[in-house]
C-alpha cells in the first residue's frame, strides 16, 4: 500500500512501499505497449506540471503518463508564469489548487521546494527533482528497469559514477537501492563528493576501476561543464580519463552488467558512444519505464489504492 499524500523522496519510503510502487508500474507498462495507449482510469482528474527548470524527458514523461490515463494536464513553466512577477511558490501552489489541480508535479532548482508546496496545498505533490536533494521518480524507474532485467534487486552491486555532489539522481538511487538490499558504490573526484557521504550507507570510491569491480549495474551521471568554471575539477579531458566509461573499464564489471544513464548524455565525456549504443546500455528502456512508473504514481496518488488491473 502507498498511504502518503505526496511523493517527495525515496529516503522516507519503506522497502515494501517501493516494491508496491514498482509492482503497480508493471501493468502500466503493458498499457504503453498496446496499440491504443489509453485507459479511462483518471478521467476527470487534473495534473499540473510546474517546472522551474528546463526538462524535456521528465516533463514529457509525466505529461504522457497523465494522458495515457485520461487525466487532463497542463504545463506551467517557471519562466512563463507569474513566477517572473515575483510570486512565491506558496502563492503559485494555492493558485494551482484553486484552478482544480489534483496532482502538482514540481521540478525546482532548490532542495525542499516540494516539501514547501506539499505543506501549502491539499493536492498531491510529486517531486520531479529538487536541486541536489531527490529525484524519486528517476530512482523508481531505475529500480524498475534493473528489477525487470535482473529479476530482483537484493544482493546486486550498483556503481554510481560522476558528480555526486550535485546529483539528486545519485541520492535517490542510494536510498532506493540500499533499502532494496543492493550494495551501492559511489565514485567521483573528491571535489564532487559531498561531505559525510559514507553515512548514507554507500561505499565511497575515488578510483573508478575499483568501483566497477564486479558491478552488476553502472549508473553514469552527467557532468556539467559549468562545474569546471566553478573550480570543482580541472577539465573535461582529465575528467573523462579518470571517470569516463570505456570498454576497458566496462570489462571490469560483471559480464552481464547493465549500463544506465539518466540523460541527457555527454557522449565521449562520461560515456563512450559505442557503449551508449551497445546492447549493454538500457538507456532508452529507462525512458519507457519512466512513463510506466509515473502512471503508477498518478494512479496511486489520486486514490487508486489496490493493485491496478490493466484489463479493466
Amino acid at each position: 500500500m502507498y498511504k502518503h499524500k505526496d511523493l517527495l523522496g525515496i529516503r522516507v519510503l519503506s522497502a515494501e512501499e517501493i516494491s508496491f510502487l514498482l509492482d503497480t508500474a508493471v501493468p502500466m507498462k503493458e498499457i504503453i505497449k498496446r496499440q491504443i495507449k489509453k485507459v479511462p482510469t483518471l478521467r476527470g482528474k487534473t495534473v499540473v506540471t510546474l517546472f522551474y527548470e528546463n526538462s524535456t524527458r521528465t516533463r514529457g514523461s509525466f505529461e504522457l503518463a497523465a494522458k495515457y490515463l485520461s487525466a487532463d494536464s497542463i504545463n506551467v513553466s517557471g519562466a512563463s508564469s507569474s513566477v517572473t512577477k515575483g510570486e512565491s511558490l506558496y502563492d503559485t501552489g494555492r493558485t494551482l489548487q484553486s484552478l482544480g489541480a489534483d496532482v502538482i508535479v514540481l521540478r525546482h532548482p532548490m532542495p525542499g521546494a516540494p516539501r514547501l508546496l506539499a505543506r501549502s496545498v491539499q493536492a498531491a505533490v510529486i517531486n520531479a527533482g529538487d536541486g541536489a536533494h531527490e529525484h524519486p521518480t528517476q530512482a523508481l524507474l531505475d529500480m524498475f528497469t534493473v528489477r525487470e532485467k535482473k529479476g530482483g534487486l537484493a544482493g546486486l552491486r550498483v556503481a554510481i559514477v560522476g558528480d555526486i555532489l550535485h546529483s539528486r539522481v545519485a541520492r535517490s538511487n542510494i536510498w532506493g537501492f540500499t533499502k532494496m538490499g543492493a550494495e551501492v558504490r559511489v565514485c567521483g573526484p573528491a571535489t564532487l563528493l559531498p561531505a559525510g557521504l559514507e553515512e548514507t550507507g554507500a561505499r565511497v570510491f575515488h578510483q573508478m576501476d575499483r568501483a566497477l569491480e564486479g558491478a552488476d549495474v553502472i549508473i553514469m551521471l552527467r557532468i556539467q561543464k559549468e562545474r569546471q568554471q566553478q573550480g570543482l575539477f580541472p577539465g573535461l579531458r582529465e575528467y573523462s580519463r579518470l571517470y569516463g566509461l570505456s570498454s576497458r573499464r566496462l570489462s571490469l564489471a560483471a559480464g552481464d552488467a547493465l549500463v544506465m544513464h539518466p540523460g541527457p548524455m555527454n557522449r565521449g565525456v562520461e560515456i563512450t558512444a559505442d557503449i551508449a549504443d551497445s546492447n549493454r546500455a538500457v538507456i532508452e528502456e529507462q525512458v519507457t519505464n519512466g512513463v510506466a512508473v509515473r502512471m503508477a504514481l498518478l494512479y496511486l496518488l489520486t486514490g487508486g489504492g489496490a493493485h491496478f488491473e490493466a484489463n479493466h
Partner: protein
Amino acid sequence: MKLIIKNGRILDPAAGRDETADLYVDHGVISAPFQPDQDTKIIDAAGRLVTPGLIDMHVHLREPGFEYKETIATGTAAAARGGFTGVACMPNTEPVTDNRVAVEYINKRAAEAGLAHVYPIGAITRGSLGKELAELADMREAGAAAFSDDGRPVPDAGLMRRAMQYCGMLDAVIISHCEDKSLAGDGVMHEGAYATTLGLKGIPASAEEAMVARDIILAAETKCPLHIAHVSTAGSVSLVREAKKRGVRVTAEATPHHFTLTDRAVGDFDTNAKVNPPLRGEADVQAIREGLADGAIDVIATDHAPHSFDEKNVEFDLAPFGLVGLETAVGLVWTELVHTGVLTPLQAVQKLSLNPARILGVTGGALAVGAPADITVIDPLLEETVNPAAFAGKSKNTPFTGRRLKGLPVLTVVAGEIKYERQNSGVRSQ
C-alpha cells in the same frame, strides 16, 4: 517608587555573592535597607533567583528600515519579557548605523520606548561595505558601545588591522562575526552528512575558524580588544581558549541555539532553523558547552534576528538567516546548562550580565548598594512550553516551538521600574 524584593536567592557575580537575602531599591538604585512606607512595593521572591539585569550583547532590532520585522519598541518589549534589562543592537539596519546621527537616533527611539537599555553597536566600515573606515571616534562619542560589521565581516585583512589599531586607540571592542565568504560560498547549513542528505549546500567549519584565527592574530598584534560573536565550532572554541592562555585580549560568546541544537534541527527543511553561523554537529555542541564551563566562552548572547512569517515561508535557499532568541534564552540556559550541571547559577548569571557589561564597558552585572536597579528575577523551577504566539516581539521565527523549558524570568526591573511581570508566576507582590 521604592521596591523591596524579599527572601530571594541573591546572585551577584560582581561580588561573588550567592545567598538568600532581601534587596532594596530606592530612586532607581539599589539601596541600604529601609522601612517600607505606602509607596513601597514588596515582592516575595522566595525560591526565586534575584540577579543583576541580564544583558544581551547581540541582537538585531531592525529599526530603522525593517520595522515590519521588529522595532526598537517591540524588540525591547521582547527583551523585558525575556528577562533582559539591556541589549546591544547590531548596525545592519537601513540605513546602516555607521555615523553619529544613526547612533543618536537609536538612543532617542530607545528612550521613547523606555523598556530596556539599548547599546548601539556602530559599523566598522561605511555602509558595512568593507571598503573604508566609518567615523568610529565620532560614533563612540555619541554612545556606540562597540563596533562590528556583523553579518558582513570585513574581508580585507589589512583594513581589519587598521580598524583594530583605531579601535585600540579608542579602547572600543571590535565584535567579529567570523566568516570567510570564499569558504562559506552560498552554503545554507552546516556541511556534513545531513546537508548531503537534504541536498543543501554546506558551510564548512573552516569558514568560521579561518577568520577566528586571522582576527586573533590581528588582535594580538594591535592590542585591540576583540570579541568573537556566536562561536559555533569546536575549532573556534580551541582557538579562543589558546589565545586567552597567551594573554590576547579576546572574548567570545555562544548562543542558546548553538549550545542546544545540531544540524539535525533543520529537519524537513525548517527555515526557522536556518541561521548563520549554522547549527553544527554534536561534537561542536559539546565543545561549546565545555567552553562555557571552563571560561573559554565568556558570554551567552542570543543573536536575536527577527524575520517575518512570509520571509521564512519560502524555499530553504531563499529564506533569510536568523532566528529570534530574546524570549527563550533564559529558559534554554537553565534547561540546557544549569539544570544539567554545565554551569552553576552564578556562572550562568555572570555570562548573562557581568561579562557582557564589562566587554561593552557599560554598567551592570552588580547588585551592590548604589548600583543601578537593573534586576531580573528568575524562577528556576517554573516550566512552560515555547509558544511563539505569546512572544512580545514582532516576529515568531523560532526553532524551539513546542519545546519544554524549565527556569523562566518572572520579573524584570529597569532603573527601579518594573518593565515585565509574569502573570500567575506565583511571585507575590503587595
